[in-house]
């Protein structure tokens, strides 16, 4: 029993990262109705920026916040430069652009920083804080940092006028325009925030998976799983889904014989299970469109 509790807590640490990626995916999905395949690569690139800033001698937390800010600007710019001109284009065009972004960002990171694996520092240390090597100080820090960020985001969307305007622009763009909201600008801000959230996720997970251009590929898959489980229309659901996937993945290693090797399979089976029973995810809303 004690072991189960420990595995759950361990799962929450990685789940926090999945939750961030899932949330970033949902934010962009809400704005443009498409899944951003490049979300993980954007997070990876941000992590490299943080690494570079620290290489240049900046203290950890200074580099952290500067990277988050830079990522916001880059995310904003990607929407304005790449997606604004094609916002009426077909789904396939968007998919192609996402794949192109994925490839471009991935190889750019490799070109600038090389494909060799780099260690990434943690400000929390690696001592065990729980059990015996189960939850490291870094794992606890990961939960704390993402928890604080998610709480701030909740407060922002729930209690500020800009947050309200962003929710309105995502839910009902036509009506939003009619009250004077600049919907395109709000979408770009959404992209900026998604990139910033991804940056936090990337910086937090880098000490665990090490820094290299493909570091986010599996994490993105888990993030997708979390977003789909929670429902692509529900930011809160995506966060829940991310944590759930993290915990399920950790518990899966308990299954005798194949558990540890089949972690990813089990997470993906979870998506199929949820989609079969609840096609809109656990917290998703059915989209009914009138014709």
């Amino acid at each position, binding site marked *: 029993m004690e072991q189960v509790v420990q595995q759950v807590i361990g799962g929450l640490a990685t789940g926090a990262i999945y939750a961030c990626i899932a949330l970033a995916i949902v934010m962009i999905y809400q704005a443009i109705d498409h899944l951003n395949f490049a979300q993980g690569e954007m997070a990876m690139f941000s992590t490299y920026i943080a690494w570079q800033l620290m290489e240049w001698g900046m203290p950890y937390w200074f580099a952290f916040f500067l990277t988050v800010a830079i990522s916001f600007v880059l995310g904003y710019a990607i929407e304005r430069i790449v997606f604004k001109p094609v916002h009426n284009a077909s789904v396939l065009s968007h998919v192609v652009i996402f794949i192109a972004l994925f490839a471009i960002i991935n190889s750019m990171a490799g070109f600038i920083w090389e494909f060799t694996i780099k260690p990434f520092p943690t400000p929390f240390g690696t001592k065990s804080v729980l059990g015996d090597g189960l939850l490291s100080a870094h794992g606890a820090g990961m939960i704390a940092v993402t928890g604080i960020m998610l709480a701030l985001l909740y407060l922002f969307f729930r209690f500020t006028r800009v947050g*309200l305007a962003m929710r309105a622009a995502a839910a009902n763009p036509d009506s939003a*325009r009619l*009250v*004077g*909201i600049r*919907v395109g600008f709000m979408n770009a801000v959404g992209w900026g925030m998604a990139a910033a959230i991804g940056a936090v996720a990337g910086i937090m997970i880098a000490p665990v998976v090490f820094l290299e251009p493909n570091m986010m590929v599996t994490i993105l898959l888990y993030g997708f799983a979390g977003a789909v489980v929670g429902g692509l229309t529900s930011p809160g659901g995506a966060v829940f889904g991310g944590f759930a996937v993290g915990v399920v993945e950790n518990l899966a290693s308990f299954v005798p014989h194949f558990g540890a090797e089949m972690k990813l399979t089990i997470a993906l089976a979870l998506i199929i299970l949820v989609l079969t029973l609840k096609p809109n995810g656990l917290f998703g809303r059915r989209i009914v469109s009138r014709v």
Partner: protein
Amino acid sequence: MTAPLLSAKNLRAFYGPTQILFDLNFDMHEGGITTLLGANGAGKTTTLRALSGMVKTGGEIRFEGKVISNKDTADIVRLGVAHVPEGRGTFVRQTVEENLQLGGITQPAGQISADMERVFAYFPRLKERFRQQAGTLSGGEQQMLAIGRALMLRPKIMLLDEPSFGLAPLIVQEMFSILRTLNEKEKVSMFLVEQNASLALDLADHAYLLETGRVVMSGPAKELSQDESIRRAYLGY
């Protein structure tokens, strides 16, 4: 005679390659209520959408003397043009309070609560429903909310798209008397699109009749309501 508040010159509108409006010309004056009558598919809604920049247009639209054709919808709204759209445009997942806040989202934060009280003076029902999700309101309440949301903008003109649509006759009466009060007390000019011609001619001071995208008749509302052909085709007696 002062310059018109809102005017259209040779206004054309298109959905893709299909032309919907053909060289409309109209003026409306500050403080007035103008109505646009016409059957289904005549282009009434499209005219409103053209005015607030939601469809591709040709020709020229001026508001307070400045050309607004082909400006962004949000920028037109910020000039004080409140469009209450067909279907009411309710933010269904948000509460009544949030809907009203959104109506005033372009206004200074300091005036929001006072403006909300002003809306509640006209629509006390909205105050009772304050924390309720707007999608759960009845049709009449949602129409009140739509007009309340428009008021939060402190508009110079309201573009109203079929405010009587789908409402019980008693509610319609109430709605139109509130619109008259808003026009008189708040000095809001109105551009009203209606299928219910007798109601609209009663409220308005000037009227235009639209048929398949063209203005076929215009004049003071009183005169049009006396007109033989209008009476037969639109008033039904």
